[in-house]
């Protein structure tokens, strides 16, 4: 069996693994970068490149050691360093003397090189792609349900357990019918978790760089830490939404991007690159929707995300919403992150109490 290593993008790797089957081969991936892979990447990469590159590089080195022949890396058409990832990773792997071959998604003619190389039949090619879409939808639903339930669960750890069980089932699902059944079952599974319905959890939005929004190893499991402190999350990277956005740009209109730039217009009049515009626009939207706070994640020195931080600070002041900015590098420790998040949660809780006190409420009404 031929294997292909694919980059880790959190739980969505399960769906991408199905997409790889369309080439008639199997995927070699995990839902989070392993610390061992990260270490390999850090040793091999230039010191000042951003952490996602080191994570991907380490992942591919590990794949090569496991005997995988091919790898796949996403292309970007943006302005930031992601655009050069594939070239650079390929170069470094070549310098290390590894034989793994990296494909991108580029078109040069009718078929992309990756399809031409494996040359699957039309039915083998199309069917898994539809299945992938199903799986992405299923994972989107699981994620959304988990953020809600984890904040109000009575027995600590119930949601994570249910989520993991469903994800394992999803990764083992081979047919569309199975995936559909899992989607139906998921709602019941989450509904069965005993929750405290009286509780009004704090609401926090997560924005920033996508590897850090998704990869549990890189972001030190931030979703779990926040959820177990009773905070309802909204992570602004859902792959389903993102794919819809991309296909819309290609085929029909730029409606979502347009609405985002309209939202952020007062603060940022350019899309910058990466997910910088999204970070600003969603921070504004969350402030308007009455979220208690925002968390902005990015690797240390990320070009687009760091350059908009002065703007985020202004949004935070103008809209009166606390924004916690966390930068990750290879020395970031999970305990340090947990401490900061706990402190942030305490601040948000105190703020809510203060804002809900009768005196404050009167003051707010007076301001109109």
């Amino acid at each position, binding site marked *: 069996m031929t294997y292909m290593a694919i980059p880790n993008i959190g739980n969505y790797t399960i769906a991408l693994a199905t997409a790889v089957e369309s080439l008639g081969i199997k995927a070699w991936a995990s839902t989070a970068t392993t610390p061992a892979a990260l270490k390999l990447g850090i040793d091999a990469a*230039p010191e000042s490149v951003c952490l996602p590159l080191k994570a991907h590089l380490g992942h591919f080195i590990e794949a090569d050691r496991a005997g995988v022949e091919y790898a796949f890396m996403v292309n970007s058409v943006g302005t930031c360093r992601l655009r050069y990832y594939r070239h*650079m990773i390929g*170069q470094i792997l070549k310098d290390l003397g590894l034989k793994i071959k990296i494909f991108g998604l580029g078109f040069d003619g009718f078929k992309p090189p990756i399809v031409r190389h494996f040359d699957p039949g039309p039915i083998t090619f199309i069917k898994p792609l539809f299945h992938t879409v199903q799986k992405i939808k299923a994972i989107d639903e699981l994620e959304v349900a988990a953020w809600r339930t984890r904040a109000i669960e009575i027995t600590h750890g119930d949601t994570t357990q249910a989520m993991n069980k469903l994800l394992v089932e999803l990764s083992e699902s081979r047919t569309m019918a199975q995936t559909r059944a899992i989607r139906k079952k998921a709602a019941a599974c989450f509904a069965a978790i005993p929750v405290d319905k009286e509780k009004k959890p704090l609401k926090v939005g997560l924005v920033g760089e996508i590897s850090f929004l998704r990869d549990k190893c890189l972001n030190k499991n931030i979703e779990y830490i926040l959820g177990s402190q009773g905070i309802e999350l909204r992570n602004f990277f859902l792959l389903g939404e993102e794919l819809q956005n991309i296909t819309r740009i290609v085929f029909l209109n730029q409606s979502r991007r347009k609405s985002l730039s309209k939202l952020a217009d007062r603060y940022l009049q350019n*899309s910058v*690159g990466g997910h*910088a515009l999204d970070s600003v626009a969603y921070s504004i939207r969350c402030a308007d929707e009455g979220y208690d706070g925002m968390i902005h994640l990015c690797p240390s020195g990320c070009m*687009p995300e*760091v*350059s908009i931080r002065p703007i985020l*600070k202004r949004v935070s002041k103008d809209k009166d919403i606390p924004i916690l900015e966390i930068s990750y590098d290879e020395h970031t420790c999970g305990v340090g992150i947990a401490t900061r998040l706990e402190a942030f949660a305490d601040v948000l809780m105190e703020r809510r109490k203060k804002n809900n006190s009768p005196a404050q409420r009167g003051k707010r009404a007076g301001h109109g």
Partner: protein
Amino acid sequence: MIMIKRPDESAGAYTGAGNRFLRNISPGWMWKSGTSSCSSLRIGIPRMFFYYIYPGLWEAFFGELGMKPIVSRPSTTKTVEKASQISETEHCLPNKLFDAHLAELVGKVDMVFVPRVLSTIKNHLSCPKFGPLPDAARADIARGTEVLSIDIDVSRIPLSNTLLLLGKKLNIQKGKTLSAINSSFSAMESAHKKMARPNRIKGSPRFLLIGHPYVIHDNFIAGPILNKLESMGVEAKLISFADNTPAKSYILWSTANKIYHELNTLSGEDYDGVIQLTVFNCGCDSMMIDTYRQLMKDKSIPYMYLMVDEHLAQSGIDTRVEAFIDSLRWRQ
């Protein structure tokens, strides 16, 4: 006819221990307390990024339009101190310096000029940090002042048309803007020539200095290194960005592509070595340095890179430059 006037020849004294020929590049357009009675609009230009990317252009353009361009002073240790106090901690060094330059102008001028440089060469891109530059200025440091901004996207609109739009934005007659564009372009040309000029020493070894235009011409970042090279009797040529037509390659960042091609066409007879100046936390350079190094290794031209951060110390630079030059001399 170029209408730039030097308000004060002694302006160069601000640079302190700066490099002699860096001072010559940039005529000191500085704010003087006595001249505020002038009715014309004072427009502030931070001496960073776009000031070095389009050298001489902005002063000439705004001067010709009847405004009073005021350029912030060349960066010194004091600028860096200020920068580390007011700027975002994770910015690259030039971006921090930019914030300090901006802060210096705010309050002294009626308007600050911060364009959004999206691309300077057709089908190329600029650093993504330039994208939110005017917005970041409005949000934070230049909050009290009006920020004049325009999108410079040469991939879509040529520079001259962008300048026409800028004139329209300022409510200035088209004829006047056109003549201003012409004279400012010739001013930029002469400034480019001045910038590319090597230091006066003719000697050996001969070096090529590469890096972003706003890095190799900045007084704080490049000054100590150029001083050291000069005092060691080394001839150094700075890479020129006047010719804006590099061939296409996989690199889309315009400066990085320009440097890549310069190194690609370099032969060992022209130069004895290449010194790259880079700054801490520069995203473009972090991706490109390995490529440059490999290129130079293939051609067996000695290559060294010096990374500058806020804590730049002359002695550290001295040691590294001396060691590099000594080893080259022994090789000969």
